[in-house]
């Protein structure tokens, strides 16, 4: 880095030494001393100097590497150092990334037909893509920090599960109902939090998520409590079951039955639901209501002065986001065949929120990429066993250092001048402003 050539090495070393000292203090107790219950129940402990030293060394070396990378690449101004050729190449990739991903997604069941594991993983990723896109309406567009999004996922899942098991209603009737019920709960959450923003809003939504979960656990007669709801019907292809029976799809088409049929069907179902979410969001963004959401994120006072009813704007954002969460929940229930409160913990909310933030708040493609990275990453690092979360956390920290606005921080405008307005150039050059 030409800016500070002399102080560079020294400051890097200083940072590294400080970090190493902090690591020494932290790890001396956490790692340096190993305690265990002895044979008679007494406390035995011994020192582990080797492990401690290696950890401190790793922190020291790591600090130097990170500082060097920081000075060479820079935290956020990366683009300036990238040569124009690479930049135009990236723009090219950027333009065709979304269609390419879509085509790839459509072909996944064809390519990986015999790999059940990959198909299951793809369904999981798509579920989170849909949840991410749903939460993106609330957090990314309207700027309302919602830590209880899993509540709507749960409402949707339980709506479908209970309606289907108690009344024998088909999936295709229950699916919109689950969406509507979740949207209603979204409005119910919205009302008390209308006046809250930022941290306060986050706390209340967090509590809301927990309340829903606790109600589900304790309302045994309705929800089965911690035992969950078993035997949720599988979805049918508009009345045709996808099983081994005589009137199943395989028998009707005269092909040999395979359990993969259902998996492929589920895959296309969630893909369709996710794409619906995406399409609706993109359409809404270009309508006044979508613009009002974004304006609300930017400046609430200005919104009111411009005649936007902030109450209805917030409630529609909550309702829309919740509806998509509910639809995803109904899908989750029919896919699993069994749901219990354990599936709807705060961790799910945090994961979906992380996907939205990592993707770049408001960016549809970014959210999809982030869901792929997060959920795919979980699986990718499975071989690392106990270090999985550590590696994963480090990867997230690194991404946030280099791309603080998320993977795709760019925001596409939604208003264009309809036609080239004829304003003579001399007027422009006159120097007004």
């Amino acid at each position: 880095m030409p800016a500070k050539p002399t102080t560079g090495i020294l400051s890097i070393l200083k940072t590294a030494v400080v970090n190493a000292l902090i690591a020494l203090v932290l790890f001396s107790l956490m790692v340096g001393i190993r305690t265990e219950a002895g044979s008679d129940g007494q406390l035995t402990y011994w020192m582990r100097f080797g492990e401690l030293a290696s950890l401190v060394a790793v922190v020291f070396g790591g600090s130097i590497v990170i500082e060097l990378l920081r000075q060479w690449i820079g935290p956020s101004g990366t683009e300036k150092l990238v040569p124009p050729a690479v930049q135009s190449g990236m723009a090219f990739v950027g333009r065709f990334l979304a269609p390419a991903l879509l085509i790839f997604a459509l072909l996944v069941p064809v390519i990986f037909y015999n790999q059940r594991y990959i198909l299951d993983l793809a369904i999981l990723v798509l579920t989170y893509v849909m949840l991410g896109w749903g939460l993106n309406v609330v957090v990314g567009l309207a700027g309302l920090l919602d830590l209880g999004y899993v509540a709507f996922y749960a409402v949707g899942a339980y709506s479908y599960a209970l309606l289907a098991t108690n009344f024998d209603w088909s999936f295709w009737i229950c699916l919109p109902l689950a969406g509507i019920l979740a949207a209603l709960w979204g409005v119910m959450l919205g009302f008390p939090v209308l006046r809250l923003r930022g941290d306060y809003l986050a706390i209340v939504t967090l509590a809301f998520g927990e309340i829903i979960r606790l109600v589900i656990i304790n309302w045994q007669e309705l929800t089965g409590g911690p035992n969950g709801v078993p035997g949720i019907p599988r979805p049918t292809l508009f009345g045709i079951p996808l099983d081994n029976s005589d009137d199943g799809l395989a028998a009707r088409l005269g092909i040999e039955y395979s359990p993969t049929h259902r998996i492929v069907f589920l895959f296309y179902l969630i893909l369709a639901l996710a794409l619906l979410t995406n399409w609706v969001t993109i359409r809404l963004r270009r309508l006044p209501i979508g613009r009002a959401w974004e304006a609300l994120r930017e400046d609430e006072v200005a919104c009111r002065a411009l005649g936007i009813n902030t109450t209805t704007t917030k409630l529609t954002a909550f309702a829309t986001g919740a509806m998509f969460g509910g639809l995803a929940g109904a899908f989750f229930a029919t896919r699993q065949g069994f749901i219990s409160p354990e599936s709807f913990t705060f961790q799910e909310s945090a994961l979906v929120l992380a996907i939205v933030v990592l993707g770049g708040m408001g960016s549809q493609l970014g959210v999809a990429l982030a869901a792929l990275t997060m959920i795919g990453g979980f699986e990718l690092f499975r071989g690392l066993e106990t270090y999985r979360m550590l590696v994963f956390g480090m990867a997230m920290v690194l991404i946030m250092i280099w791309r603080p606005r998320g993977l795709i921080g760019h925001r596409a405008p939604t208003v264009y001048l309809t036609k080239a307005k004829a304003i003579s150039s001399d007027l422009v050059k006159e120097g007004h402003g």
Partner: protein
Amino acid sequence: MTSPLLAIRSLRAAYGKIEALKGVDVEINAGEIVALIGANGAGKSTLMMTIFGKPRARAGQILYEGRDITDVPTHAIAHLRIAQSPEGRRIFPRMSVAENLQMGADATGCTEAERDATLERVFTLFPRLKERYAQRGGTLSGGEQQMLAIGRALMSRPRLLLLDEPSLGLAPLIARQIFDAIRTLNRQDGLTVLIVEQNANHALKLAHRGYVMVNGLITLAGTGAELLQRAEIRAAYLEGGRHG
């Protein structure tokens, strides 16, 4: 004489226990530019915001075209063709200039043709905005942001425009351009303007009439030229605040 476009009668407003407006009377006739001047904390911005219902008036009346709008919700006031360029501009920083302007038109429900005509007008007044229409609002300079804030307010095709400190933090040349644009709007489009300013000299030269506000009360009123001549105004607001 016809009844005023906006009439404010013994208006009181408070933040908690602190009373900011202690019975204010202001009248604005259609086609006028009215300046409201006063020191920091006199209640000028509060008056502006109370017209928009935030904070709510504790007592008194706000009559617009003869109709009592004191209790109309904030967002509904913009639909009465009153527009506001709030203090500190408050443009939407991550949205493009075109989107910011569109936001001004969205809530009032105009036709596309009306919107395009208004847009054309805004671009004629502030050609800079046309040059920068695809740029994010936050990347504009202070003067451009002020132009955008006024342009956004104009997009709702108002009869009455409330401007809160449009020259705040702007270079004198830019401030003059803003004031010129306001004068043009008033003369050519017949727009009625209430302008709150600390820059008393500029504001009073621009305005037909002016009010001076001190500690939540109107202490002086008169034509712009009259007020500019008064010794106490000159002392308090025009000559660096030296009294006596």
